């Protein structure tokens, strides 16, 4: 087994084990708690009641008159507090007047203001650079794939060129994954520092598609196998 094949095989096994055992390839970032002087604004419940009918386990039917109200969550971009705006509305059913409730937001969908004057220009230009880089890599990779397919169609499978091309494709797929990982991590960290929610933590989750990395490493392994095949073919071809 040649040296490169050993290295790629070990790398493949390590990535799979790390992926299964840890959460290294998925990351969560939690923002700091919102400032105490900021308040979560809650609107008053609307007038009127909505009748709700409940059926208990023993078959008894009870009619309640409950009011429902919704509260509005305002997200304040940390660097631009003057640009506070409504980003989400959540309904809280079964509320009763003059009662104190603990509101637990399990899941809130936030629309992040991405205009430059609100969030800064960093996500835009950073995303553009990494997006362009990824596009260049993808186009280059497609050219190499087409080149490789054309050689294979001619019957030239176990040749050094095919092995080299597969190696290049493998490295490119791994590079795409790494670019995606760096972009996600950087943008997430940036948003954490720029978006706060009064009285709450925000958890940003990001998971990059690990299949790019695994497929890339698998292609590296295959390229070495093709190289071994080339040597075996030469032995046969150069036997008289």
């Amino acid at each position, binding site marked *: 087994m040649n040296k490169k094949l050993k290295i790629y095989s070990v790398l493949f096994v390590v990535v799979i084990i790390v992926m299964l055992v840890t959460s290294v390839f998925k990351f969560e970032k939690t923002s700091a708690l919102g400032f105490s002087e900021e308040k979560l604004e809650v609107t008053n419940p609307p007038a009127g009641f909505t009748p709700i009918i409940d059926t208990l386990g023993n078959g008894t039917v009870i009619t309640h008159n409950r009011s429902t109200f919704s509260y509005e969550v305002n997200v304040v971009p940390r660097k631009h507090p003057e640009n506070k705006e409504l980003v989400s509305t959540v309904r809280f059913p079964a509320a009763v007047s003059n009662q104190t409730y603990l509101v637990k937001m399990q899941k809130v969908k936030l629309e992040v203001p991405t205009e430059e004057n609100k969030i800064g220009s960093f996500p835009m230009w950073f995303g553009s650079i990494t997006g362009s880089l990824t596009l260049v890599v993808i186009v280059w990779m497609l050219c190499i794939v087409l080149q490789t397919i054309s050689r294979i169609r001619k019957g030239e499978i176990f040749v050094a060129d095919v092995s080299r091309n597969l190696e290049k494709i493998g490295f490119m797929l791994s590079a795409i994954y790494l670019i995606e990982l760096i972009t996600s991590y950087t943008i997430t960290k940036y948003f954490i520092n720029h978006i706060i929610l009064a009285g709450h933590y925000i958890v940003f989750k990001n998971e990059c598609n690990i299949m790019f990395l695994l497929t890339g490493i698998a292609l590296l392994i295959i390229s070495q196998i093709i190289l071994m095949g080339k040597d075996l073919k030469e*032995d046969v071809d*150069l*036997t*008289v």
Partner: protein
Amino acid sequence: MSIIVNLDVMMAKRKISSQALAEQIGITQANLSLLKTGKVRAVRFSTLDAICKALDCQPGDILEFKDDEPIE
């Protein structure tokens, strides 16, 4: 590779052309050329047998071992 093929020397001694020898031993001229220049990886015994019959010689007349690495 440390094995030297002296086929062209033997061919000159027996005054036989590449084309004639290739036809007699049943290989292509291209393969015979590779054999003469020492670019082949292996030789079958059947081919060696055919060469020795065609040139009326011993395997040692065609193949020579020269150690490339000096003895330490």
